[in-house]
């Protein structure tokens, strides 16, 4: 399972970086979204995978016993997902606005701010 997730994380990173390097604005945003998912998966994987042992104290117990899933990465991912959701929705509004104002989707033509005039 770990091997599968590790390969999956690698694929997501590669796909995200590939899309960011394309010239289209839309592909740029999709690339960032995919990279974000890759990171979330990486955090999940780094916590270690434990199958079927949620970190819940049984009703008659006082403390967790034996092997249990690490709850911290899940909390971290939840936070990261919420944050990236907010940022991505801002990004979509921004590229929509950029397309309307600049009349182009091509990143290579966006060089007005770098001109030496």
């Amino acid at each position, binding site marked *: 399972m770990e091997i599968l997730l590790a390969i999956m994380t690698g694929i997501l990173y590669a796909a995200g970086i590939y899309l*960011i390097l394309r010239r289209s*604005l839309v592909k*740029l945003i999709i690339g*960032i979204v995919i*990279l*974000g998912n890759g*990171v979330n998966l*990486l*955090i999940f*994987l*780094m*916590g270690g995978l434990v199958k079927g042992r949620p970190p819940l104290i049984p009703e008659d117990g006082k403390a967790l016993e034996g092997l249990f899933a690490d709850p*911290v*990465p899940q909390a*971290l991912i939840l*936070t*990261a997902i919420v*944050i990236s959701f*907010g*940022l991505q929705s*801002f*990004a979509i509004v*921004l*590229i929509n*606005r*950029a397309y309307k*104002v*600049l009349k182009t989707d091509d*990143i290579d033509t*966006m060089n*007005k*701010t*770098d001109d*030496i*005039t």
Partner: protein
Amino acid sequence: MSEHLTIYPIIVHLLTAILLLFFWMKPNIQRYISIFGSAVGIVIGALLFQRVWAEGIQSIQLGNWQAPFGITMVADTLAVSLIVLTNIISFALSIFSTKNMVSSRVKFGYHAIFHFLIMGLSGAFITGDLFSLYVWFEVIIISSFVLLTIGGRKIQIEGAVKYFTLNMISSIIFLTGIAMVYGATGSLNMAELSRIIPEIENKGLIQTISLVFFIGFGVKSGVFPLYFWLPASYHTPPAVVSALFAGLLTKVGIYAMIRVFTLIFPLGEVNQVILMVIAGLTMFFGGIGALVQKDILRVFSYLIICHIGFMVGGLSLFTEVAIVGAVMYMFHDIIVKATLFMLGGVMFRIFGTTRLKDMGGLMDNYPRLSLLFAIPLFALVGVPPLSGFWPKVSLFSASYSEGEIAMLVMFIFASLITLVIIAKVWNSTFSKKENKLEKRASFKYFTDFSFAEKAAYIVPIILLVGVTLYYSLFAEHFQVVAERIGNELMNTEQYYNAVFGIKEETKL
């Protein structure tokens, strides 16, 4: 009540921002609340500074979860000094924005977002947890996106696309680093990490992780190969936003770099060389970039990059004297860079343009203003006894005594090229003959301003120039603070003890 003083700098700006949301359509009330909120921020910052100075590093466990499990807030001398400076800048910029920000933009929530940004900065300075640092960084960047695009001019949107992309990527790299640290150690508490990391056998892994962090923070602070978003976006928004970004946003990247590379991953031989090379290249390319630019705001943007090199260089030498120099330089740079972009805003109002070619005659027409403007410009170069001179004493002597002559040469090169650039700016704006440009009809020039408008533009500059002069003439006060910071950063057990150790001292 008073044991929670550590988190008050965050709460002040949070409450101010929430209060501002209730006056969404009333720009004038918003302006007063914003100035008041920043003034309270200065008072809180000063109180916290005084407490940290008297009683040592303060820490607070949020929700009373004990140290490695919950989120810890730690106020050490570096963090509180930066909070005080942040609030001073925020106060000056609140006054500056009363006239620099038109009401239509204020109605998009400018002031509320401004205070959310300051809140994010304060949080990033005092957090003691790596993941929480990431969250505060996100608070900062989402606020800065809104500030950058507010108003929605064509050039702003284009700058924002570049700024947005690079900052998102840097956050993703930072988060990757956090995931790797958690995988390697099982903890994200900075104080605990400072004990766990040296015991890990696999040095190559730690090396790799530390460089992942360096790339993440490097994008934010604008070091050599990663800085291209900065000059592409910093000249696009209104002057007050540029001043805020120039003064504080790149410095929070440097702060994170200093914190992580002293506390968590103390610099080794390899990292030191990498940081030195990058610092040298940053100073070189920032300086050369500024030299060829023909727009005053873009010249200043490249100067930010050039001077980031001083701080990274100071960190890379990794002796107490060098860290003192880097911290002193950071204090000086925060104040002067914010002043510079406000100057740019005033010059734009005087000339109606930011192109150096079309400016001129400032000295003939505004002799008193010229004198005021000269102070931050000369302080930037480091003309003794102005503020840029003092940090360089520590930086030069540290690089000489460490035998890093190449670093010393780069410091001198960067100082000289700054002098050339400022001389160029001085020639084309102050001493050159006035250009008789045709006046733009729909543009409000500085000469048409009422007294209140002029005051709103000039008073914050006088305020920050006053701070610069205080720094220049009483540099020993800053030196004492910086030496204590250097001591705290190089001897990490103080930080560790404040988080874990003797509780009765920190929790009265």
